[in-house]
């Protein structure tokens, strides 16, 4: 098997990262106790009664947080990878479809004006889907779902919802709510770190990830261009529409819970491509794994780097931008 070492490295990094994040935190826990807690959770009869506080922290805070981060990372990375190859454009991620600004607008609306009984994530989810639908319908109505049409419609919808978001911010009835909106927009894995929320996220994103994974070879075909795809017996418009919708669905589902976390969908597939080549069958698989790893580690930084918690979206962007520049310089020529 080609490139065995990097593949193994990526595969093992995920469990390692999750293990690390179980051990890390401001509350002092020694590794032995943490391991006991984990073991007792898996085999309840084997080990009994680790300290209650440590048990709660590890199982109800660190573990769900790591898992939520992993899901978010996987979703963002895989949809980024899929879109980049489908649209034959290395500069896109799912946010190009208007999802982030739609979700941001929805969340802002809920925080500013809707009663507290309406969950913010539900409104965010609905609006990010609405934004995507708009972009999608727009792209199909005038460009028959072509690559350029999709990207342009995304840009338009993005601009519209960004403006609407700014308006909601401006009209926010109280400066404190304004602050809440700003924080939501910067992303926070902590607000998704509940097992029941994770279940809901998984319920949507797991099937979507699986679908993309099973369709990963078609991405190779789609990335050749429409003519070639048709020649190979694939209807590019339909397939691209389907895959785009799936990406949008799962991204919406995660973004609604975590807030906007940028530069993961853009960066991770590039790193994977650099390591393992441009074959989408490989890229998709390892984007899932590596995206998850990247996000888990980034969230560890957000939790532990300073005494305050750092906003994860800001962190990933700050880390991502220079890394991306470096990669571009390093690998000019790898992408067309």
């Amino acid at each position, binding site marked *: 098997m080609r490139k065995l070492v*990097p593949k193994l490295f990526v595969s093992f990094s995920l469990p390692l990262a999750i293990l*690390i994040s179980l051990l890390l935190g401001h509350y002092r826990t020694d590794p032995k106790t943490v391991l006991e807690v984990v073991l007792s959770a898996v085999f309840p009869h084997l080990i009994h009664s680790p300290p209650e506080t440590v048990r709660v922290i590890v199982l109800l805070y660190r573990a769900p947080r790591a898992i939520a981060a992993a899901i978010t990372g996987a979703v963002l990375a895989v949809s980024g990878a899929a879109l980049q190859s489908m649209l034959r454009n290395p500069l896109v991620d799912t946010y190009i479809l208007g999802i982030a600004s739609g979700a941001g607008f929805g969340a802002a609306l809920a925080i500013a004006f809707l009663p507290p009984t309406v969950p913010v994530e539900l409104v965010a989810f609905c609006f990010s889907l609405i934004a995507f639908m708009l972009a999608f319908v727009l792209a199909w109505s005038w460009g028959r779902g072509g690559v350029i049409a999709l990207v342009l419609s995304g840009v338009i919808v993005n601009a519209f919802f960004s403006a609407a978001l700014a308006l909601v911010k401006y009209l926010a009835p109280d400066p*404190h709510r304004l602050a809440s909106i700003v924080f939501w927009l910067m992303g926070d894995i902590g607000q998704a770190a509940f097992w029941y929320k994770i279940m809901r996220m998984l319920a949507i994103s797991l099937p979507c990830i699986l679908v993309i994974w099973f369709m990963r070879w078609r991405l190779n075909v789609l990335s050749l261009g429409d003519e070639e795809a048709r020649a190979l017996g694939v209807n590019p418009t339909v397939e691209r529409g389907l895959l785009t919708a799936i990406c949008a669905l799962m991204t919406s589902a995660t973004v609604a819970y975590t807030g906007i976390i940028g530069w993961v969908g853009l960066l991770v597939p590039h*790193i994977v491509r650099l*390591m393992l080549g441009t074959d989408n069958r490989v890229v998709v698989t390892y984007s899932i794994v590596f995206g998850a790893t990247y996000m888990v580690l980034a969230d560890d930084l957000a939790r532990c780097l300073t005494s305050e918690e750092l*906003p994860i979206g800001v962190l990933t962007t700050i880390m991502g931008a220079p890394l991306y520049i470096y990669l571009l310089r*390093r690998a000019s020529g790898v992408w067309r």
Partner: protein
Amino acid sequence: MRSQVGISKWVLVTILVVVIVAIVAAVITTYLYYSARPSKPTAPPPPTKPTKPTKPAIVIKDFRGKTIELAKPAERVVVLQSYWAEVIVALGKANTIVGVGSYVPYDEYLPPEVRDLPKVGSIFRGVNVEAIASLKPDVVIMDFGYGKADEIIKKLEQMGIPVIGLFIRGIEDEIKAIEILGKVLGAEEKAKKLIEFIKTRYGKLKELGAKVPESKRLKVVFISGSSVLKGGALSLYANASWGRAVEDIGAVNVALHEFPNKKWPKVDFETLVKWDPDVVFITSSVKYVQKVLDKVASDTRWHVLKAYKSGRIYVVPCWGSIGGVLDWGPRDIIGREYIAKLLYPDVYREVDWRGDMEYLLEHFYGIDIPKQAFAAYSIEWKEIVDPLGNVVKVPRKVKKVVDLISYLSDLALGVMDRLVGVSKYAKKNPVLLKVYPKIKDIPSPGSSFKVNIEVLEMLRPDVVIIWPYKPSVVEQIEKLGIPVVKVHLYSYDDVRRLLWCLGVLYGVVDRVKKIINDMDNLLMLVRERIKDIPSEKRVRVLYLWSKPTRVQGGRGTMNDAIVLAGGVNVAAKEFPDKSYVTVDFERIVKWNPDMIVIWWWAKYGPEDLLKDPKWSVVKAVKEGRVYKEPYYEHWGPDLTLFVLWLACKMYPDRFSDINFMEIANKYYMEWYGILYSEVASAG
């Protein structure tokens, strides 16, 4: 291409390794930092007490030239004038006073325990000598040489009660009097400090005053405000303490030159016109400042004066109401600084009478009255201090205000009809909507972050009150020539500063005094019940903002509220200078607070924390001590009500007899004209 990929692979591996190493390093340093932190600073050694020398009998000579001997420092004192009472308080001997003159209780700079003492009469109406005798004073301290003073002294001395007679003709006498009182009361050290305070400032005034060249000395007339109000002959300050004070600071007191032998000559208005001084100063009690100025402005005779045309008629607020700067006693020097600064603003640039007043009150009087309570008054403007400490010149009578901040305070001060513009947020305030529905019709020129300059120009307010977080907005407004009052509220003291500032700005000081008094009473009620709780038994509180991991740090009104209520803010130590800070959940577990309070406007409630299993390890959640605060405004007098609410929740057994809702209703009715129960659940 493949070779490139091969190289990049190892670069990526390196990056990953670096990231992981960075994480591990960060964690290790965090652990090391917390474990290496010293557990507690070692207690300083107890201060060695200075050995007291045995006191010799006290022998002093008073201003009459009479020698008074005391076997020991006086422990029971009757004092007839408020300014001598102020000196005694400034010497730290307030507890020696057992009886006071009739006017002393009106001096608001004195502590309540002095103002509430038995009254024995006054120099003008005569005193009840028997009442004085029954108080068994070691000594009586009073003025001599006017009124019925000498008669009173004679009677007292016949009864064997020693009298210290004082009279002031200038700062030197002031200093001598403080020296004498320091000796009599056994407070020489404190007296030395007070004298030092006065002497350095007096020296500075004289030094700068001497620099004014003869040719440039302004002609000044210093008039008693009550004679101005009466409208008849004008009573002037000539060869008396304040009359000569004008000369000390480099001006020519016309009255002193015309009547070198009279203390308080009376002249008719024509004489004043003949002299036509450059500057006129008028004394007045704080209450009548505007009345005096109104009289001057409405009486057309005044308009022929050069001083009126150039706007150089000033009022010096005097005597014992808060805001009074000139009086005999320790504040005399402050009043002189006030006059000097108005007379020659450039010469006396470095003189800060407000700062000196704050210092004097804090360090000698032991009372907390901020700079913001003091203003300088002219016929055209008044100079106030905004909560940030900037001096702001506003029109003499402020009639049109755009307030982008302090909605409820304006309501409490009864000045809503003067608001011509409010922040759009004010229109959502549940109390205002109920009490003052007209708020909806007041235009909104924006917020502190974005102001519509054209609307503002149209409203043309006398002053704009604003958060200065966006300098460009402030600059824009100032460019229109509209004065800007800048506010920040990081502490309970800031709230008090704002209230004083608004009171002075709107000219409703009496109302502010009442409200601050109410606030002090509420805090006192709490303080009395919690003061004996040892620090290790204080309830450790965590305050949560818009989401459960957004906590209140050590800076801000909420932190102060927790401390004032007798609690400990668990987040204060690690985030001493933050108001809002988002933390990792584990940090909250580590703090393990006894009680959690949630912001009234938060979109979650106690039930959300109680049902979340991961919060179950936090003590407050385990014990069910998680509360959502009721509605109140964080930035006004309400804060003290919140302190009471908090204290009731923290120490229920100590406050079992307190009906919070009843008290809150009472104060809300007094402040805003609405029952608290009508708005408590708002939001």
